[in-house]
């Protein structure tokens, strides 16, 4: 499907990442927004509030983030592509209903413009400290998808992708920005609507008596066909463990089937979901791994290291979850070491270590947040890694 031209602001713009993200949502067909203001994400909500009335969207500022996330799920079942935007403290409040989204397979997009934490932390300054919370923040076993843009242009692009993935896989998709990317202003090119691919949810349209809301067959892989409320199928949706009919079935057998499918539908499609960019990884002895704003600082460190004669490459994650496990395993076969550059004291690096599994050395360039790394500090770790 092509994008609805109504929401697409075609042209070259000078936008910050927050505004670009809002435009990405509009282009993707998002028409329901519920949120609660929080720095440094508020500009996304503000732009949506400004733009929605004339594109047929519905914007509501809720009383808190618990309500925002619940309303987003309601909006999705009401038939609209739905999203919310927040930062650390609000992200914490959303967790229970993110689990409900995972369990009920409700397509939705959650944008987190990350600031330094824990707690109120650094409201106006960057961090990348919610990466594990994105993956594991709600209780129980489930999978989500998370993307990590590193420029305003990419905020626009991956927000569209986030909606497409959420509709295709019926999972919550998180756009994990950071304060720097959210507030940096750069050129953003928005293509004409007919050049923007959007994915609309696969809806069941068979006979009413045959509808099994959570049945999967070989045609639709591990993702059941959805019905929107009001379409006449009169289905039941519950956060309890449920069978194909959507009815509660609380026993170990159904739990095994239900939860395994929730995990597998993402995990076993990692090859189709996970995106990354590589810079001279094949010839490298050492590979930097980075995402979001840290990938841009890592690029500077890479240039400096190269000038020193070090054979170095960069693996830039565009998708953080599911983690591009297979590709990392391949690279680990021919490099000596990896250096993870991230604005936290060691989060995605643990996933990197798990995948490398001793095949190469893994180092961390940590940073507690509040600013970005100094390229010199990364260079220092690179040179330690080469000795």
């Amino acid at each position: 499907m092509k994008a609805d031209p109504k929401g697409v602001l075609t042209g070259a713009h000078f936008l910050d990442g927050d505004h670009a993200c809002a435009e990405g949502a509009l282009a993707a067909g998002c028409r329901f927004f519920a949120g609660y203001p929080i720095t440094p994400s508020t500009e996304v909500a503000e732009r949506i509030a400004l733009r929605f009335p004339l594109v047929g969207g519905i914007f509501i500022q809720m009383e808190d983030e618990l309500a925002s996330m619940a309303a987003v799920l309601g909006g999705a079942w009401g038939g609209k592509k739905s999203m919310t935007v927040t930062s650390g403290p609000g992200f914490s409040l959303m967790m229970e209903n993110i689990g409900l989204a995972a369990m009920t397979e409700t397509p939705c997009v959650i944008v987190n413009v990350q600031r330094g934490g824990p707690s109120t932390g650094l409201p106006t300054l960057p961090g990348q400290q919610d990466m594990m919370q994105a993956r594991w923040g709600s209780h129980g076993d489930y999978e989500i998808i998370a993307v990590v843009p590193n420029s305003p242009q990419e905020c626009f692009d991956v927000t569209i992708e986030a909606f497409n993935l959420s509709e295709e896989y019926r999972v919550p998709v998180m756009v994990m920005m950071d304060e720097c990317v959210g507030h940096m202003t750069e050129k953003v090119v928005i293509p004409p609507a007919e050049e923007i691919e959007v994915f609309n949810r696969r809806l069941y349209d068979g006979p009413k008596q045959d509808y099994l809301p959570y049945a999967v067959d070989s045609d639709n892989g591990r993702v059941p066909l959805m019905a929107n409320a009001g379409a006449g199928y009169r289905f039941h949706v519950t956060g309890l463990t449920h069978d194909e009919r959507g009815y509660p079935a609380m026993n170990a057998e159904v739990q095994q089937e239900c939860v395994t499918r929730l995990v597998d539908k993402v995990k076993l499609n990692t090859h189709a979901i996970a995106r990354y960019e590589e810079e001279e990884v094949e010839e490298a002895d050492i590979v930097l791994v980075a995402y979001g704003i840290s990938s841009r600082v890592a690029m500077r460190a890479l240039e400096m290291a190269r000038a020193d004669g070090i054979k170095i490459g960069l693996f830039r994650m565009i998708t953080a979850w599911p983690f591009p496990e297979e590709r990392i395993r391949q690279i680990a076969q021919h490099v000596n070491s990896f250096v993870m550059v991230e604005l936290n004291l060691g989060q995605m690096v643990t996933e990197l270590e798990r995948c490398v599994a001793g095949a190469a050395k893994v180092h961390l360039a940590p940073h507690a947040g509040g600013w970005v790394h100094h390229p010199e500090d990364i260079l220092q770790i690179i040179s330690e890694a080469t000795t």
Partner: protein
Amino acid sequence: MNAVTHPMEDILRMDRMPHIWCPGCGIGTAVTAFAMALQKAEICLDKTAVVSGIGCSGRVAGYVKLDSFHTTHGRAIPFATGLKLANPELTVVVISGDGDLIAIGGNHFIHAARRNVDIKVFCINNFNYAMTGGQLAPTTPEPATTTTSPYGAFEHPFNLPFLAESSGAVYVARWTALHIRRLTKSMTEALSKKGFSFVEIIAPCPTLYSRRNRLGDGLDELKYYHDNSVIKHGLDTRELDIGYRKEIVMGKFVDKDRPTFIEALNDRFTQVFGDKYEQYGPQNANGN
């Protein structure tokens, strides 16, 4: 010969019977009243959705043969808000317990009423948290005992109709599970009312609340309602506190009109944008 069918087969999920509620529980009565109200209100069942939170009362969504959502504890109202706003064609009904709607979900209750979101909230008040074993609720009368107020409740409970009215509800009523005909009538009115409509249903929980307070079984509780309830339509909602084993005042207290969230939104945007603005409503509800 026609096969014999249950009169509510079109509304209840017969394939999920028997239900989980205890003998003498008032929740089933509330569901019966709701099913009759749906039939009386003559609204399209395909366009009616029920949203519940968590609790014994929260299980209602699982037994109605409608688009039905069993959500998280306290979040039925914001979920319903999203559902209604995304598809204004729907009649959206929240059925849940007093703990769910007024304690953990209390903030959402007052804000949805303030905004006059067009949803119907039917709150089953059994004076305790039943699902988790009978704990103190924001409605437990002083000094009833519960497992977490073993020496008797000493917090002042909420007066739900007063809370609803002062937050902005346009329709407010209260009945007990004994007054099923009147309860059905109020639910029917609420279903056809535009705006945030609230019906409180006082219901027996014989297994926990009654047993713990040595109040007998479900029938004894209905006897208490019978002997101690009075109807006072239009009474000032400030007068509606419920004391322990004291009089229960029932009736319809509020029935007024003011713009719903979507009406107010349409008015505002029409003022600002004029003809450029396309009214938000059922006609553009289901665009993907």
